[in-house]
C-alpha cells in the first residue's frame, strides 16, 4: 500500500509541477519576444497564490460537497479556458472580437491583473484537488510524511525537467509557435489531459467532457424529434426511434461530439491555410516572395500547436471512449415482496451491499406484472431509487457503465450523479424513506409512477 501511495503522490507532484512549469516557460518565451517579460511575475504570483490557497484544504475538513465543488471548479476553469482560446483563435483569424479590450489592454495594471486572475483560475482547482488527494493518500500511509515528501520530490523532478527543457528549447524557437490563442489552447490541452486530481487512473478530464457533450448531442437530437412528433410505438419496432438511437449511440455520438469540440481549432486551421495574404508594398520579385514566405511560414508555425491539439484530443478521445464502449453491466433483478403496502429492500444482506456504488435491481411481482426497481448509491453518498424504466422508451431497463446508467433501448448514457431528476430518458424516480437497515417504498408510489413508463407524461405535466 505504501509504495502505491508514494507513486501516486510523486506522480501528482510531477504532474502539477510540469503543468505549471511548461505553461510558465511558454508564457515567458512569448513575453520575452514581445518585450514584456515583467508580466511573468503576475503569472508566478498567481501560481503561488493558488498553492497557498489550495494548501488551506490540508487543514480544513473536506466534505463531499467541497470535493464536488472543487471538481466542478476544475471543469469550469477548463471550459472558460477553452471558450477563451476559441475566442482568441477566432480573433486571430480575422474576427475583431476584442476590439473593446484592445483599447484597455495597454494598461499594465490590467494586464497584470488579468494574468494573475487567469493563473489563479487555472491552478486553484487543480492544486486544491491535488492537495485533497494527497491528504487522503496520507491517511492510507502509516508514515504520512512519506506522502508529502513524495509530492515534494515530484515537484522537484518537474523543476529539473523544466530547466533541462529550457536549455534545449530556445525561447525564440518556442515563441515562434505561439501567440496568445495558441498559448490558451495549449493551456487548455494541458488542463484537459492532466486536469484530473484523482491520481494516475483519473488523470484527464476527457471522460467528463465526453459525457457532457454526448448528453448535449443526445438532448438536441431527442428534442428535435420530439418537436417533430415522432412517436415511440409500444409494439411497432420499426419506428424512427430506433434510428434516433443510432445518432446518440456511443459510436456516432463520439464522432459528433469530437467534431463539436474541435470546431474552433479546425476553423482556425482552415483559415490558416485558406485565408488571403495581406497586402504588401512589393508587387513582385524577391521581396514579395520573402514577405509571402514569412507570412505563410508564420501561419504554419502558429497552426502547429492547434494541429497538435486536434491530433492529441482525437487520439485520446477514441482511446478513452473505446473503454467506454465496453460492456454495460446489467445486474440480475432480485425479487422483493410487499408488506402492508410497503416494499422493503435491505440495505445490506449477505449477498449485497447497496452502498457499494454498483447498480442493484429488484423486481416486484404484482397482478401478474413485474415491476423492476433499481437502486444505486451516487458518488456523493446519497442513495437513488428509481423504476428501471423511463418515460420515453420501452422498459428494457438500464445497465451500468462506469459512472453512467445506460438505457438498454436507446443507448442514452445518464450520469449517475444526476439520477433523481424526472423526465426524458432519466429513470423515473421513486420517493422513498431510508435508514441504516432498509429502504422503504410505498407500493402506491410504485404503481403511480409505473403509469409514467413509456408515456412522456411528466413533460406534459411540467408544461
Amino acid at each position: 500500500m505504501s509504495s502505491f501511495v508514494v507513486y501516486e503522490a510523486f506522480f501528482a507532484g510531477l504532474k502539477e509541477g510540469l503543468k505549471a512549469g511548461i505553461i510558465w516557460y511558454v508564457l515567458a518565451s512569448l513575453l520575452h519576444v514581445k518585450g514584456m517579460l515583467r508580466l511573468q511575475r503576475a503569472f508566478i504570483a498567481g501560481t503561488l497564490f493558488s498553492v497557498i490557497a489550495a494548501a488551506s484544504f490540508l487543514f480544513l475538513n473536506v466534505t463531499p460537497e467541497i470535493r464536488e465543488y472543487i471538481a466542478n471548479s476544475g471543469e469550469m476553469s477548463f471550459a472558460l479556458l477553452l471558450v477563451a482560446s476559441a475566442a482568441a483563435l477566432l480573433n486571430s483569424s480575422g474576427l475583431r472580437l476584442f476590439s473593446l479590450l484592445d483599447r484597455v489592454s495597454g494598461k499594465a495594471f490590467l494586464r497584470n491583473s488579468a494574468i494573475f486572475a487567469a493563473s489563479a483560475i487555472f491552478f486553484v482547482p487543480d492544486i486544491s484537488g491535488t492537495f485533497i488527494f494527497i491528504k487522503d493518500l496520507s491517511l492510507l500511509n502509516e508514515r504520512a510524511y512519506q506522502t508529502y515528501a513524495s509530492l515534494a520530490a515530484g515537484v522537484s523532478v518537474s523543476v529539473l525537467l523544466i530547466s533541462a527543457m529550457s536549455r534545449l528549447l530556445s525561447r525564440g524557437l518556442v515563441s515562434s509557435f505561439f501567440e496568445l490563442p495558441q498559448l490558451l489552447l495549449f493551456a487548455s490541452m494541458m488542463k484537459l489531459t492532466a486536469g484530473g486530481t484523482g491520481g494516475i487512473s483519473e488523470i484527464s478530464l476527457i471522460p467528463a467532457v465526453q459525457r457532457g457533450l454526448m448528453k448535449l448531442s443526445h438532448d438536441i437530437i431527442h428534442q428535435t424529434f420530439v418537436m417533430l412528433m415522432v412517436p415511440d410505438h409500444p409494439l411497432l419496432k420499426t419506428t424512427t426511434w430506433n434510428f434516433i438511437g443510432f445518432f446518440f449511440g456511443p459510436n456516432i455520438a463520439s464522432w459528433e461530439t469530437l467534431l463539436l469540440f474541435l470546431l474552433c481549432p479546425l476553423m482556425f486551421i482552415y483559415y490558416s491555410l485558406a485565408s488571403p495574404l495581406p497586402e504588401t508594398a512589393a508587387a513582385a520579385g524577391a521581396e514579395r516572395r520573402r514577405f509571402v514566405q514569412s507570412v505563410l511560414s508564420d501561419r504554419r508555425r502558429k497552426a502547429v500547436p492547434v494541429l497538435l491539439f486536434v491530433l492529441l484530443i482525437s487520439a485520446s478521445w477514441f482511446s478513452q471512449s473505446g473503454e467506454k464502449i465496453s460492456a454495460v453491466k446489467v445486474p440480475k433483478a432480485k425479487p422483493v415482496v410487499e408488506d402492508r403496502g410497503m416494499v422493503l429492500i435491505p440495505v445490506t444482506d449477505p449477498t449485497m451491499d447497496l452502498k457499494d456504488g454498483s447498480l442493484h435491481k429488484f423486481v416486484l411481482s404484482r397482478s401478474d406484472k413485474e415491476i423492476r426497481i433499481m437502486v444505486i448509491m451516487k458518488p456523493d453518498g446519497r442513495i437513488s431509487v428509481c423504476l428501471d424504466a423511463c418515460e420515453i422508451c420501452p422498459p428494457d431497463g438500464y445497465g451500468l457503465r462506469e459512472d453512467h446508467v445506460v438505457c438498454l433501448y436507446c443507448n442514452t448514457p445518464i450520469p449517475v450523479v444526476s439520477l433523481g431528476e424526472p423526465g426524458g430518458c432519466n429513470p423515473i424516480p421513486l420517493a422513498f424513506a431510508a435508514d441504516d437497515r432498509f429502504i422503504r417504498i410505498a407500493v402506491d408510489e410504485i404503481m403511480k409512477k409505473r403509469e409514467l413508463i413509456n408515456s412522456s407524461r411528466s413533460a406534459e405535466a411540467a408544461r
Partner: protein
Amino acid sequence: MSAFMESRVWKFMKRILSLLSSPEALFWSIGSWVTYYTFMMIWDKESFAHFVNGLADRTIMQVPYLLFLLTGYLNLFRSSKKCLKTNIWKLAGTKLLPFGILLVFTGAFISISSRQFQWINAMPGDEIRPRWAQEQYRVESVDAGVRDRLLDIDSEGESGIFKYEPKVTISQSGQAARSIGAFPPSRVGNTFYHVLNFGMAPSFAISEGGVLKGREYVPLRLLMPGSNDSFEIQPLPYKFLVSFEPDRTIQKGSVKAGEYNMKDPLLRIRVLEGQDVVAEEVTRESMSFRNIRLDVGKPVYWVQLEAVKDRGVYLIVSGLLFTCLGLPLYVISICMNLLRRQD
C-alpha cells in the same frame, strides 16, 4: 430640428444594425450561450432541460435568443449580398447550410414557446376536439391492423402481430374521412394527429341480481398474447383482471404455442375482492359469480391520439432539409476554395 433628430435617430439605428449584422455580434452571442450552457451543465448536471424550459416561458432567455437569431439572419444577409449579384452557385454552396441551421433554430423557438398538445383517448363513435381547435371530429373506426389469428410466439418477433400499421379514421360532417396513422403525423385543420397508443376494448355488460347495471366498452391495455390489464366497476368492490386465453394449443415437435382469436378473443377473467380471488373463468360470452353476471361482447379498439398544434414544425423540417442539402455543398466549396488557392 426634426430633420436633425431623424438623421440622428437614423444614424443610431444604422449603428445598431451594423453592430447586430457583424460577425462579432454573432460570435459573442454564440459564445455567451456556450458559456451559459457549460456553466449549467457543470454545476447543475442538467442543462438542456433548463434551456428548453427557459425558452418556453422566460423572457430573460427568450430575448437573448431572439437577438441571437436576429444577428444570425443579418449576418447571413450581409454575407450573401455580394454572392447574390455575382455567383449564385457560390451562394448555394456556402449559404444553404447556415440558412438551414438558422431555420431549425427559429422553428425550435416557435415550437418550444408556442406548441400545444393533448392526448386524446377515443373509441369508435367518440367525438374528439383538442382544446384549441374549433372543429370537432368523429372517430369512425380504429383499425389496429392486428392479424385475426395469432400464436403467442408471434408477439416475440418485431411487428409480428400486425398485418399493417394501425390507423384511425376520423370525419367531420360534410367532409371526407381522414386516416391517421402512427407516423408521419397527419395534418387535420391546424392540428397534427398521430396514433400514440392503442389497445383492445372488450364490451362488458354487468347485471346485479338480474338487473342490468351498465354496458360499455372498457379500454384496456390488451393487445397481444401475454398482455393483461384490470378494471373496476364502481361501486362494486371487485377488481376484474383480464388476459387473453388461447383457443387451442398447437404443438410441433418440441415447440408449443397457443393460438389466439383476435377478432373474438377468449378472455380469462379473474375477479378479486381485495386480495382474494372470488371467481375465475375463461369465456368469450359471460361469467357469473355471487349475484353478478358479466356478459362479454365483441371488442373494439381504443386509440390514444396525440394532437399537436405546432407552428414550428414546418420550419424545423425545412431547416433540416436545407442543412442536409447544404452540408455536402459546403464541404465541396471548402475543398474547391483550397484547390483554387493552391493554384
